[in-house]
């Protein structure tokens, strides 16, 4: 158990290092950040000044090590653009993204698992067809377009929901649907196929041969087994949702870290971009770890003796 945990943590660290190197190189090698920092209409002198001030004149390796060293102490430096500690900037915005991500995940799970279960116990019926259609269409529908259409219909025509902002729960409804919808197909298919497989498995037959009622067979024996891969997917999916919220955040004017990252790339606010990439990666790694733990709880084969 300890060895395993250490290994996982080691792997996480290795992933973090690799990710940080990739993001560092990617952004730094692409050009001179000083000019970007200097802003529109800046003169050459200002640019040169900034270059030295931020240490962009040193060798790349040194710059990386310097950054990594401080990142280990949760110090991602200061955003040249905002003139504020990166940690603070991200801290101000991550709440929105996390809220959106978690709500979307809950939405996706709450819709797709019941649908997947229904589809699996009535395969090739109209319920199954509808569920499948939703999932296929969901995969083909760009989320930004879906969001825009929702704004037109629910926001402008019907005036049911507020269009943008984060002031109340109602403000989160459309973004949650737009982002969560994206996760539904994968969850639903996995639930359905997992349930179909489990339902045709030997131990379900055993359970039925014991005379258990259908509901008990379904919820006690089938769902628990079928849900295990779904949990693993949920971690990955939440990671994707956090990363993919860029588009949704920009459509609905939610000021989370996705949108912050996008803007920061444009203005070459490197410390912010690096920190967000690293943060999202770490969230992803942490989530997969978490899903492993949950699965170990659900599936004793993974657990310790």
């Amino acid at each position, binding site marked *: 158990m300890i060895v395993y945990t250490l290994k996982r943590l080691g792997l996480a660290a290795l992933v973090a290092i690799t990710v940080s190197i990739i993001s560092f190189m990617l952004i730094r090698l692409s050009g001179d950040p000083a*000019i970007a920092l200097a802003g529109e209409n800046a*003169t050459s002198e200002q*640019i040169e000044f900034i270059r030295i001030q931020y240490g962009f004149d040193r060798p790349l390796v040194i710059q990386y090590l310097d950054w990594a060293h401080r990142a280990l102490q949760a110090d991602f430096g200061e955003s040249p653009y905002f*003139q504020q500690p990166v940690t603070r900037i991200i801290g101000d915005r991550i709440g929105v993204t996390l809220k959106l991500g978690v709500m979307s995940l809950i939405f996706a799970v709450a819709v797709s698992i019941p649908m997947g279960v229904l589809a699996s116990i009535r395969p090739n019926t109209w319920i199954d067809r509808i569920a499948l259609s939703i999932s296929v269409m969901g995969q083909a529908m760009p989320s930004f377009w879906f969001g825009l259409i929702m704004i*037109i219909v629910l926001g402008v025509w019907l005036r049911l929901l507020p269009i*943008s*902002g984060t002031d109340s729960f109602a403000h989160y409804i459309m973004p949650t649907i737009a982002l969560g919808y994206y996760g539904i197909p994968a969850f639903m298919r996995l639930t359905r196929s997992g349930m179909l497989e489990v339902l045709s498995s030997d131990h379900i037959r055993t359970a039925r041969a014991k005379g258990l009622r259908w509901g008990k067979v379904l919820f006690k024996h089938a769902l628990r087994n079928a849900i295990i891969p779904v949990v693993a997917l949920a971690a990955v999916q939440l990671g994707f949702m956090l990363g993919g919220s860029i588009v949704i955040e920009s459509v609905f004017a939610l000021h989370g870290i996705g949108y912050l990252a996008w803007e920061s790339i444009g*203005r070459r606010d490197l410390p912010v971009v690096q920190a967000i990439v690293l943060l999202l990666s770490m969230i992803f790694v942490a989530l997969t770890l978490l899903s492993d733990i949950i699965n170990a709880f659900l599936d004793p084969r993974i657990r310790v003796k």
Partner: protein
Amino acid sequence: WAGKKDDVLNIAWEKELETLNLYYQTAREGVILGRHIFDRLIHRDPESGEYKGCLAKSFKWIDSVTMEFELREGITFHNGEKFDADDVVFTLNHMSNPENKVKVYQYVGWIKNAEKLGPYKVKINLKDPTPAAFEFLAGPVMIYPDEYYQKVGMKEFGVAPIGTGPYKVVKVTPGKEIVMKKNENYFKESPKGQPVIGTIRQRTIPEANTKMAELMTGGLDWIWHIPKDQAEKLAQMPNIDVVAAETMRVGFLYFLLDSPQVKTPFTDIRVRKAVAHAIDREAIVKNLVGGDSKVVHTTCYPKQFGCTEEGVTKYDYNPEKAKKLLAEAGYPNGLDVDLHAYRDRPYAEAVVNYLRDSGIRAKLQYMQYSALREIGRARKVPMAFWTWGSNSVYDISAFVGNWYKGTGDDVIRDPQVMEWLNKGDTSIDPAVRKENYKKALQKITEQAYTVPLFTWVANYAFSKELDFKAWPDEIPRFYMSKWK
């Protein structure tokens, strides 16, 4: 969701400001906020263009490098701090000190130092004669409270700015909104007038449609930067007013004449001229930009001091001639080239399509401003679609000075042009200045170093309940607005 009945003016723009310490940012939106939060020594009346005393009661030139100011008494900052000569001296000396690395150094760099002559009397010493000094003092040079600033420091000031202006900042949610309340104690003599609307809530909404949808549903009272067609449609809506205002921004194509890194066909003047003849600027202005946009023939804003079209070479829309010039230059079958651009993609695309018609197969490279500027300075961009807003400074030096005076952006570096511009910038005799600028402009157009295109318009859309007036300097002044 407010509006007239709550006396809250909801406005939105795309940009998120990095800081509200406005010496440390260059964005237009910061300039706008700066007019509301802060006051300057002098005020330039947007209507008449006349300079009036603001924080200064009176001001005068002592000689070409010395100015003197008599300050108003009884003014307080939003936090109650009293305004006096110390604030002015501190602000000017602090900001013009290169060690403090302000981002708008070009607007304060001319200041040698400021001296306190009395509790309400200040003298400014200039490094060189600076004809545009009034322009700077009436615009970018805001007066900060010295005690507060020194107490909180540069960064904290950026999230909790304190000024003397008609509005005070009451809430900043980074990336989301800035809320300003009317300054009840705003000094009565201010040439800017008294603020009327109680609260201004600025939200950052990057997505244009969201912005418009919010305006249409009453979530917002004022937005801007709306393309012409949408503006026309919005104007048809019962609850919305639209104003199109010319701005100081001028677009132009800028060539690279020679470079060690990339091959450029624009070494040949005939190719440059061909480009100039290939574009139907009138059609773009009429159909695409709309409003009060005008075709320009020189790279400056016509109302800037020193900007003239007198004696400059003008290039008409003539695709045949363009093709002929190309053929003469050795491109009978046309040529392939990249066009870099960073804003207003439809305009750039229209230009690309016109160039295609004359055989110049331009590929649009659309990128972020900073990225483009970087490779432009590195002499890797054969042809770019630039725009320049001169930071709302009504002096030609703010325009051509950046593009032809040998700065980093200047990749043409015609020594003769540089000399003329230098003369114009440092003389205080308006006639001498005008003469030199004219010569420079004539040479630039004759050589077709750039292809001037047209002026930009800004479209503002706002609630019918709002009384709003737009100005060509692209600075909306909400302290002059009121509910109808």
